[in-house]
C-alpha cells in the first residue's frame, strides 16, 4: 500500500466522525461562546474572576484526581480477578457491578441514604450495639460521600476496560517470565503492567473525565458547600443568568480536557506493542491455591458490599410500605407491597404527561439502542482513521475527547441557539436525544477500540492478504474477531450511558417521548409516599431492564 492511498483512505474515514462532531458539538458550542462573548463585550465583565474560576477549578481537579485514584485501587484487583479466574456467579456479578452506571443520582442518593444516612441501616445498627444517642457516622454531604459515589459509579469502567484487555493477554508471556525465575511482583511490573498499560490509562482517563464533569453527585451527595466547575456553570448559566461567566468556566473546562488529552496521547503512543490477543481467554481458571481462594473471596465480598447492597436496598424499598402510621412516631406500617408497581400503570390524575411504564421502557431502549449503533459505528471508523493518520492524529485525538469534558448545560444552550428550524429542530428532530447521548458515548467506544486495534500486528493482515484475501475479507477474518471484545465493551457502555442519562433528555425537551429516568424525576418532584414509592419502583425497573440487556450483550461475547 502506498502512502498516498493511506492518506486518501484516512480522509474518507474521517468524513463521518468530523461531520458528526462538527455539526452536533462544535457548531452549537461555538454559538454559545459567541453569544457569551457578545454579552461580555456589551455589558462588561466585572467579577473577581480569579477567585470565581480558581476555586471551583481547584476543587474539581482535586476531587476528580482523588476519586480516580481510589477507583483504580479498587478496580485493578477486581479487573485481575475477572480476567484470570473463573468463579461462581461471575457473569451475574459482572452485570451487577455495571448497574450503578445507569442510576440517576437522585436515586443513588436515596439508596445511599437508606444505607449510610443518619437513619440508615448502618447507623441504626451501630447505635443499637454501641448504645449511642446520635448516629456515629456522618458520611453524607461531604467529600468522602462524593468519592464513594464516584467509586460506586465508575469502578466498573476499570473492571470492564482493563479486564477485557487483561483477559486477551497471552498468558505465555507471563508464564515464560515465571519459568525464567521472575517472582510474581516482577512478572507484573515487567510483563503484565506494560502490556495492559494502554487500557489502564484509557480507563483512568475516562473515569477522570467523568469525575471531572460530575454534577448530580456533587450537588446531592457533596452538599452545597462543594462546587465543581460543572456545578458553577449550572448556577451561573441557569440561576444567575450570567452567561459570560458560565461561558468562561466552560472554556476553562474544555481547555483542561484538551491538556489532559494531549498528555494522554503523548503517553500512550509510545507504548503500544503488537501482540496477538487471545480470543477465548485461555488463562482463565478456577482459583485453587489457598492464596488465590482467599483473594477471590475477598474481592467478591468487597464488590458485593460496595455495589450489590445499595442496589438491593433500592429494590427492597420499592416493595416496602412507605406510608407512616399517623400519630405514632416511628411506627412504620410494616410489610411488603406491590402497590407502587401497580400504581405505575394507573394514570390517577388523568395527566397529559402520564408516563405509561412500558412506553418509558420502550423509549429508553430505543434511545439506548440507537446510541449504541451510532457511537459504535463512529467509534470504530474513527479508530481506523486515527490509525492511518500518523502524527496529526494526536492532535485530532485530543479534540475527539472534548465532548466528555463539556458541560451539558452549555451544550444544551447551544442546541437551542442553532437547532431552531428544520431540518434539525430541537422541537421535532427525533434523533437529537440519541445524538446527544452518542457525543458522550462515542469517546468511550473510541478509547476501548483504539488500543485493541493498535495492538493487532500488521503481519496478520499481510499474511491474510498474501494468501489472497480481499481487503474486506481481511477485515472480516482478522480485525473483526480481534476487535469484537473491545467493541462490545464500548457498545455496552454506550447503551448504559444512554439508559441512565437524564440531562440531555430534558434539555432536548420531547415530553411525548419520556425515558425511564425522566419518569423517575417526575415522581420525585412532588411530595407523597406514592410518588416516592413509584420513583423507587421505576428505578428498580430500570435496573432490571438494564441488567437483562447487558446480560444478553455479554452473552454475545462467546
Amino acid at each position, binding site marked *: 500500500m502506498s502512502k498516498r492511498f493511506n492518506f486518501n483512505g484516512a480522509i474518507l474515514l474521517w468524513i463521518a466522525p468530523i461531520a458528526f462532531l462538527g455539526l452536533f458539538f462544535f457548531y452549537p458550542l461555538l454559538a454559545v461562546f459567541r453569544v457569551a462573548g457578545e454579552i461580555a463585550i456589551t455589558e462588561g465583565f466585572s467579577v473577581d474572576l480569579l477567585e470565581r474560576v480558581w476555586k471551583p477549578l481547584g476543587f474539581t481537579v482535586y476531587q476528580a484526581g482523588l476519586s480516580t485514584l481510589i477507583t483504580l485501587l479498587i478496580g485493578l484487583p477486581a479487573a485481575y480477578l475477572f480476567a484470570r479466574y473463573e468463579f461462581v456467579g461471575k457473569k451475574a456479578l459482572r452485570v451487577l457491578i455495571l448497574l450503578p452506571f445507569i442510576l440517576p443520582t437522585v436515586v443513588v442518593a*436515596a439508596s445511599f441514604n437508606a444505607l449510610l444516612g443518619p437513619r440508615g441501616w448502618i447507623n441504626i445498627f451501630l447505635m443499637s450495639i454501641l448504645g449511642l444517642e446520635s448516629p456515629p457516622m456522618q458520611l453524607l454531604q461531604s467529600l468522602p460521600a462524593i468519592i464513594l459515589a464516584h467509586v460506586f459509579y465508575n469502578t466498573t469502567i476499570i473492571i470492564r476496560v482493563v479486564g477485557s484487555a487483561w483477559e486477551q493477554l497471552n498468558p505465555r508471556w507471563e508464564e515464560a517470565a515465571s519459568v525464567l525465575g521472575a517472582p510474581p511482583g516482577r512478572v507484573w511490573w515487567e510483563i503484565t503492567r506494560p502490556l495492559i498499560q494502554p487500557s489502564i490509562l484509557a480507563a483512568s482517563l475516562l473515569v477522570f473525565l467523568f469525575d471531572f464533569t460530575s454534577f448530580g453527585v456533587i450537588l446531592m451527595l457533596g452538599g452545597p458547600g462543594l462546587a465543581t466547575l460543572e456545578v458553577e456553570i449550572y448556577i451561573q448559566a441557569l440561576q444567575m443568568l450570567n452567561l459570560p461567566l458560565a461561558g468562561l468556566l466552560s472554556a476553562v473546562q474544555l481547555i483542561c480536557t484538551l491538556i489532559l488529552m494531549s498528555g494522554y496521547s503523548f503517553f500512550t503512543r509510545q507504548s503500544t506493542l503488537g501482540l496477538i490477543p487471545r480470543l477465548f481467554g485461555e488463562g482463565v481458571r478456577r482459583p485453587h491455591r489457598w492464596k488465590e481462594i482467599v483473594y477471590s473471596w475477598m474481592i467478591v465480598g468487597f464488590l458485593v458490599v460496595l455495589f450489590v447492597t445499595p442496589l438491593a436496598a433500592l429494590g427492597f424499598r420499592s416493595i416496602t410500605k412507605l406510608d407512616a402510621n399517623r400519630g405514632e412516631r416511628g411506627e412504620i406500617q410494616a410489610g411488603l407491597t406491590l402497590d407502587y408497581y401497580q400504581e405505575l400503570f394507573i394514570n390517577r390524575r388523568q395527566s397529559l404527561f402520564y408516563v405509561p411504564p412500558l412506553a418509558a421502557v420502550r423509549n429508553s431502549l430505543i434511545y439506548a439502542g440507537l446510541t449504541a449503533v451510532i457511537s459504535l459505528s463512529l467509534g470504530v471508523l474513527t479508530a481506523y482513521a486515527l490509525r492511518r493518520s500518523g502524527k496529526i492524529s494526536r492532535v485530532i485525538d485530543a479534540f475527539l475527547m472534548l465532548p466528555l469534558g463539556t458541560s451539558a448545560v452549555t451544550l444544551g444552550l447551544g442546541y437551542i441557539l442553532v437547532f*431552531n428550524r428544520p431540518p434539525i429542530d430541537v422541537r421535532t428532530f427525533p434523533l437529537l436525544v440519541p445524538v446527544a447521548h452518542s457525543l458522550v458515548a462515542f469517546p468511550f467506544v473510541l478509547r476501548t477500540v483504539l488500543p485493541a486495534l493498535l495492538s493487532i500486528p500488521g503481519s496478520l493482515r499481510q499474511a491474510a492478504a498474501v494468501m489472497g484475501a480481499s481487503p474486506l475479507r481481511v477485515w472480516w477474518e482478522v480485525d473483526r474477531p480481534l476487535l469484537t471484545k473491545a467493541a462490545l465493551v464500548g457498545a455496552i457502555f454506550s447503551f448504559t450511558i444512554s439508559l441512565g442519562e437524564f440531562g440531555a433528555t430534558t434539555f432536548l425537551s420531547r415530553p411525548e417521548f419520556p425515558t425511564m429516568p425522566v419518569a423517575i424525576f417526575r415522581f420525585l*418532584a412532588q411530595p407523597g409516599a406514592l410518588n*416516592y414509592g413509584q420513583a423507587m419502583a421505576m428505578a428498580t425497573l430500570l435496573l432490571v431492564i438494564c441488567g437483562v440487556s447487558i446480560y444478553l450483550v455479554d452473552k454475545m461475547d462467546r
Partner: protein
Amino acid sequence: MNKLVLKIFLMLIVLVLSANCTPQVTSPGGKSLTVMTHDSFAVSEEVITAFEKENNVKISFLKSGDTGAMVNKAILSKNTPLADVLYGVDNTFLSRALDADIFEAYTSPRLADIPAQFKLDSKNRVLPVDYGDVCINYDRAYFSTKKLSVPQSLEDLTKPEYKGMLVVMNPATSSPGLAFLMATIAHFGQDKYLEYWQALRANGVVVVSDWETGYYTNFSGSSGKGAQPMVVSYASSPAAEVFFAKEPPKEPPTASIVSPGTCFRQVEFVGILKGTKNRALAEKFVDFMLSPAFQEDMPLQMFVYPVNQKAKLPEVFTAHSQSPEKPATLSPDVIAKNRETWIQSWEKTVLK
C-alpha cells in the same frame, strides 16, 4: 453469536419503526400552537383535549428544564422563538424576562376575575396564572411525641430547643431555597437578614442542594425518614401527602408553619412570546389558562393555587392545605437587581 446480533438488531429496527408509527396527531386544519413550560408543568388530558377540539388546534408542550433554564432558553432564542406561549416564569425571574423583552402584551378579559395583588406587570406582558407559598413544613408526629411546641416565627427557629432540626436548600441551586431566603430578607430587611442566617447557622441549620434531597432524604415526615423534623417546602405539600397515599389518612403526617412573614409567595405567569405567528390562538390559550376549567385542574396537577377567584378548590386542598396569613413578598425589580448579591452573601455567610 451473529444470529443473536442480527436478532437484536432486527428487534431494534422494529422498535424504532413502531415508535415512528405513533400517530402524529395533527388536526385537520393543521393548526398548531407550541407552549414552552418548565418541567413541573402538568395538566389533565381531557382539559387540553377540550381546548384542542374547540379551537381545532394541536397543542405541543415544550418542557425546558427548571424555571431558570426555561427563562434562559426563551431569552437566548428570542430572535427565532421556539414557542408561541410561555408559561411558568415566576416573580423571582420575572424582571429578567421582562428586561429581555420577550413578551407581547395582551389584556385578557379574564383578568377581571383576578385580584390586583397578583398582577405584577402593569403592561400585561405577563398574566398571573397560579401561586404557591413556600413555607416550612414540619413532622407533626415528631413534635407531638416530643411534646415540643411548633415554632411560630422565623425568630423562633434560632432558639436552642430547635437546634439542628431544620433543613433548607441552597438558594443558588433550588427555587424553594431561594424563596425561603427571600422570606427572611422581606422579614428582616436587607441589612439584617445575614445576621439572622448567622444565628440559624449557629443553631445547626442543615443545607442541602435541592428540594428532593431535603424533602425525601433529610425530612423525617416524608418517606425518607430523615433526621430533621422541619423542611422548607410548600404550603400545599401536606395536601399532597394525603393525595399521594395509597390509603388516604384522615390527617396529613405533615403541616406548614403559616404565621405572618414565615412564608414566601411565588406567583407564576403566562405570556405570549414576541414574534409568534399564531397571535389569535395564543390569546385564546392564555384566556383558557385563566378560565375556571384550567384553573380548577391545576391544584391537583401541580399543587398550586388558582389566581382566578371563580375557580373552586378541590376538597383535599380545602381540608389539608393551610393558607399563610401574611406571606412575604418582594417586588420583582428588587429581586432582579439584588438576586446575585443576595445569593453570594448568603453563600459566604452560611457555607463558608
